[in-house]
């Protein structure tokens, strides 16, 4: 009586569910698709650009100081020391984007771990972990970052660690809430009733099903991290000159705002573009991965 059902209705498609549905939904989100295109171009430019430009980001040319954009082959002009802004911008982009991605990786992994352990074990383990999360959240992150960076050597690595320390709580909270609801689902109960280990249930049953919200939060974390790095570098506690970062380029532009406005405008626009692109990508992913609109 039964073999006919196997070949029946739903069985002809063979692909991962996200392979086209989520992707096409994401691309239909105009702003998100534009954001993705901008980030891809920006990343590509930062990786390849410095090799194609005639100047290196540290070459000082005092005869060419304060050249406005499009002076000879200084496409974006030069700074008070005559260094090429285009070259500096792209090298700074490498650092800023790298900091952004690294912070995202560290804080996502850490936040997910905390969230899944708190959500799975609940009880006092969950309470203690989530109160720690609350304690971290209670500090305004910009002050926390400034206080921490006052104590350490501000290398790009330390800046990344410091920013990551202030970015993982949001993800921990999202993951914990998600796990609390997933752990009551029948497939989790089935695993428990089969004697599955806590590790299996957490990382094979629960976390893969929370990936949607985690990915969204991770994307928004990149935007947040880039912004935080720009803040602290702008305030002088972050990436130290002569190493360029988008934040410290803004910092050195302050005193020449009236005479050489491109010094501030160029990195300013770049930060805005990068941050809002990541935010739009996050929005698009949120819509595309929304499990409620994904029900079969």
């Amino acid at each position, binding site marked *: *009586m039964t073999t006919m*059902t196997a070949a*029946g209705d*739903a069985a002809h498609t063979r692909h991962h569910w996200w392979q086209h549905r989520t992707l096409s939904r994401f691309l239909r989100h105009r702003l998100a698709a534009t954001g993705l295109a901008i980030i891809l171009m920006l990343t590509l430019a930062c990786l390849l650009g410095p090799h194609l430009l005639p100047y290196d980001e540290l070459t000082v040319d005092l005869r060419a100081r304060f050249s406005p954009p499009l002076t000879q082959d200084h496409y974006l002009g030069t700074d008070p020391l005559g260094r090429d802004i285009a070259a500096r911008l792209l090298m700074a982009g490498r650092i800023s984007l790298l900091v952004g991605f690294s912070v995202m990786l560290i804080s996502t992994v850490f936040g997910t771990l905390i969230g899944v352990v708190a959500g799975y074990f609940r009880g006092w383990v969950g309470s203690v972990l989530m109160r720690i999360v609350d304690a971290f959240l209670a500090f305004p992150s910009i002050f926390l970052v400034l206080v921490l960076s006052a104590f350490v050597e501000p290398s790009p690595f330390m800046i990344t660690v410091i920013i990551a320390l202030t970015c993982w709580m949001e993800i921990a909270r999202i993951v914990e809430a998600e796990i609390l609801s997933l752990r009551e689902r*029948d*497939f989790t109960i089935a695993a428990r*009733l089969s*004697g*599955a280990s806590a590790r299996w249930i957490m990382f094979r049953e629960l976390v893969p099903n929370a*990936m949607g919200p985690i990915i969204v939060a991770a994307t928004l974390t990149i935007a947040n991290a880039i912004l935080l790095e720009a803040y602290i570098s702008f305030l002088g506690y972050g990436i130290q000159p002569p190493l360029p970062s988008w934040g410290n380029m803004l910092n050195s532009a302050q005193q020449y705002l009236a005479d050489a406005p491109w010094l501030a405008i160029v990195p300013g626009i770049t930060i805005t573009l990068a941050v809002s692109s990541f935010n739009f990508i996050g929005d698009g992913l949120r819509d595309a991965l929304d499990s409620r609109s994904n029900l079969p």
Partner: protein
Amino acid sequence: MPADVMIETVALKKHFPVRKGILQREAKAVRALDGISLTIRRGEVLGLVGESGSGKSTLGKTLMMQEPPTSGQIVFGDTEISRFSERLLKPFRRRMQMIFQDPFSSLNPRMSVGDSLTMPLRFQAPDMSASARLDKARQVIETVGLSGDILERFPHEFSGGQRQRIGIARALITDPEFIVADEAVSALDVSVQAQVLNLLTEIRHRWQLTMLFVTHDLAVVGHIADRVAVMYLGKIVEVAPTRELFTRPRHPYTEALMSAVPTPERRAHQRIMLEGDIPSPISPPSGCAFRTRCPYAKPACADSAPPLDVRGTGHYAACHRPELELASPIAT
């Protein structure tokens, strides 16, 4: 204990505390199971019926030791397991498995069918090689009427009925002796329901399974169960062999439940309408819990809870009025 008993409960209680105030004091408790003593014999299918909130699903889950009971005993085979830790329970988990109600929630959407099926073996048969596990999965998936090449696919590619078959296969893969089927066909279309019921009947005979079949559907229970237990507000009110219960109910609640089953012949006025909702299991009525809705209640019913008394061979009912001649609305 006689060797033919698979699982037995003695005065089993499961109370869920209702916490109140900032101090989370345990103010009251929902008495989901309020003293269940029940025996399921090896090889039989016991149907468990009752309306929503009667505690029937809680009984199934508690037998599976999803959570420890509040008090009372669960004897599985010849071992009292109700106080066992998860570590001690692990070897018993191979021998008892569960089939879930909702085929869309019972399979992990991010796990291939093969991974879902072999998951219990990873923990119950750790010595088995990955390929031996897959062979076993292929074997059970064919037993439930699906083809062996679906193991790499994902649950979303299947219909509700197919998913339910996969869920049944997962329950069978550890060669269990006892299965709790919690509303296993309730979420399916009627035509698919019949197919899955036939499959369960077939499997049950082939594997000599003992089953607790939890459902609210009397027609389904009549089809598959050897005996039926009727639950009301956390208590068993009647237990009897299926045919006996259907032809000669001895508890007014059973009579009312059966009169609610739609049949082509019956007219509306022949139904016994129960008034009101099932009372709150936080504060059940005194005496007989059913008296507030019972058409035959006397004042004395409020005084004491009726015990589950013998009414015939293997027939027990908990009612203060054993003299009642109740109608048998269903001719089977």
